[in-house]
């Protein structure tokens, strides 16, 4: 009996855990190691270059350069959310545990990036408008997105059963992602209706290249962080499954 419980069951139907035995912890792949070393260099280089090389903004001086971090961080945060959405759909469609772990990794990194975006936006706003917060469309939508992430992570934290956790967070992730453009639109309309001045354009042409370069750098940051986080979650998952296997075969009668 001990043997039969460890052997992959010969299934009549398609029910049962199919993929867990395929998930293994491997050594960090070469591309990831290279990227992990490369990325901070790229970030530092592109930040340093554009901060030093670009002229101070005519209105805001050097402060405007905070946009080199704030805007790419925002883009990456939204990209992370798109990633969570795709992985959540993939999980519900194929019930692949890997997809759930990727979604979780994406959400964790996305939450951090969103928080960073908010903080930087706040820091930029203070000297610019004299206030720590401005209810402009982008910042406010980002704040809502942050709360959606927080809810997602809270749900994961409060749900113990791994299968239920995966299903529920996938549903929340998908619906949350669907809402992001709607939230953005409604906040934008809300602002224009109240005839608030729109945020000064942050895309001065001289800054465009800087933003693009830094955006690429931040996407690399996103990839590296999500990959490492995913691998950590995978390792935990594989360990738990191995412990479960051991518990399954323990005291099993032959």
């Amino acid at each position: 009996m001990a043997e039969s419980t460890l052997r992959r069951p010969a299934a009549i139907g398609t029910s049962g855990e199919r993929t867990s035995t395929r998930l293994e912890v491997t050594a960090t792949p070469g591309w990831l190691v290279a990227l992990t070393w490369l990325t901070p260099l790229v970030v530092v280089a592109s930040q340093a270059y554009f901060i030093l090389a670009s002229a101070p903004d005519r209105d805001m001086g050097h402060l405007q350069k905070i946009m080199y971090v704030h805007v790419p961080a925002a883009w990456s945060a939204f990209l992370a959310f798109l990633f969570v959405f795709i992985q959540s759909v993939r999980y519900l469609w194929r019930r692949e545990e890997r997809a759930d772990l990727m979604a979780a990794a994406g959400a964790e990194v996305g939450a951090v990036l969103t928080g960073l975006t908010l903080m930087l936006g706040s820091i930029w706003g203070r000297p610019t408008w004299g206030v720590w917060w401005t209810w402009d469309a982008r910042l406010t939508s980002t704040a809502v997105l942050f709360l959606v992430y927080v809810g997602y992570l809270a749900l994961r934290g409060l749900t113990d059963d791994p299968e239920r956790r995966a299903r529920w967070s996938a549903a929340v992730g998908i619906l949350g992602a669907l809402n992001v453009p709607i939230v953005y639109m409604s906040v934008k309309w809300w602002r224009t209706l109240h005839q608030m001045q729109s945020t000064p354009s942050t895309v001065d042409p001289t800054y465009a290249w800087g933003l693009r370069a830094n955006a690429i750098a931040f996407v690399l940051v996103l990839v590296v962080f999500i990959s490492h986080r995913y691998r950590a979650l995978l390792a935990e998952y594989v360990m738990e499954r191995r412990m479960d296997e051991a518990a399954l075969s323990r005291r099993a009668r032959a």
Partner: protein
Amino acid sequence: MSRLPQLSDALALNDIAHRYGRRWAVRGVSLNVARSEVLAIMGHNGSGKSTLLRVAATAIRATRGSGTVFGADLVRDAQIVRSMVALLSTEPGVYGDLTALENLRFAARMLGTSGDALELQRALDRVGLGREGHERARNMSSGMQRRLSIARLLLREPYLLLLDEPYNSLDPEGAGLVNTLIRETRARGGSVLLVAHDLSRSEGLADRTMEMRDGLLVESPSADGERDAAAASDTDDASDLANADVVEISAARRLRVERGGAR
């Protein structure tokens, strides 16, 4: 004990294992129930028999393994399976604020039957609740609620009857009712899978009896004290792994794997 499943088998379970969180309730069970057969599974609390029943009912999707009911897969064809099985679980599953009749009418309409008043009253009469139709379920004793859930079973004619501790909280009359239900189902060509810790009230109805212990089926009841003690204990945490690799995540968030004995 398990032979090749045939399409005509009422229930065929193949290597079912299921865990709740980190604890395995069922560790690898295969069994078949033929048409017109009554199979009884005995076991103590925590032996996994309830979980097994729920897997057969499609109330739970097993972590491992597969199964069919009359050839319909438990996962892929769950809807079809549900139309063929009926589960009597340990909890009555009734709505406290609704009356007995209202509970039955709800069940009938969910089942897709007409649920006319006569049919519902007949079901109540059969289980001895004929005069309690307008009583709220909340005000009934547990035995009466049990009978109400049996009445719910009578609203349809399941091909496979799944009974979880059916004799609990029932007086001899109620127990006789359950046995009649079992006989009727078998006479019709249906099958019954019954789990209980005590089969003394089953009037020997079972065609076959098995025992389940610690998530596995056993061939015969054991008088082995050591195994009983082992079955009774429940610790499944990391410190209890006997022969397995020991894996630890240290403070540095690194995996450290050790082979050999338990720590």
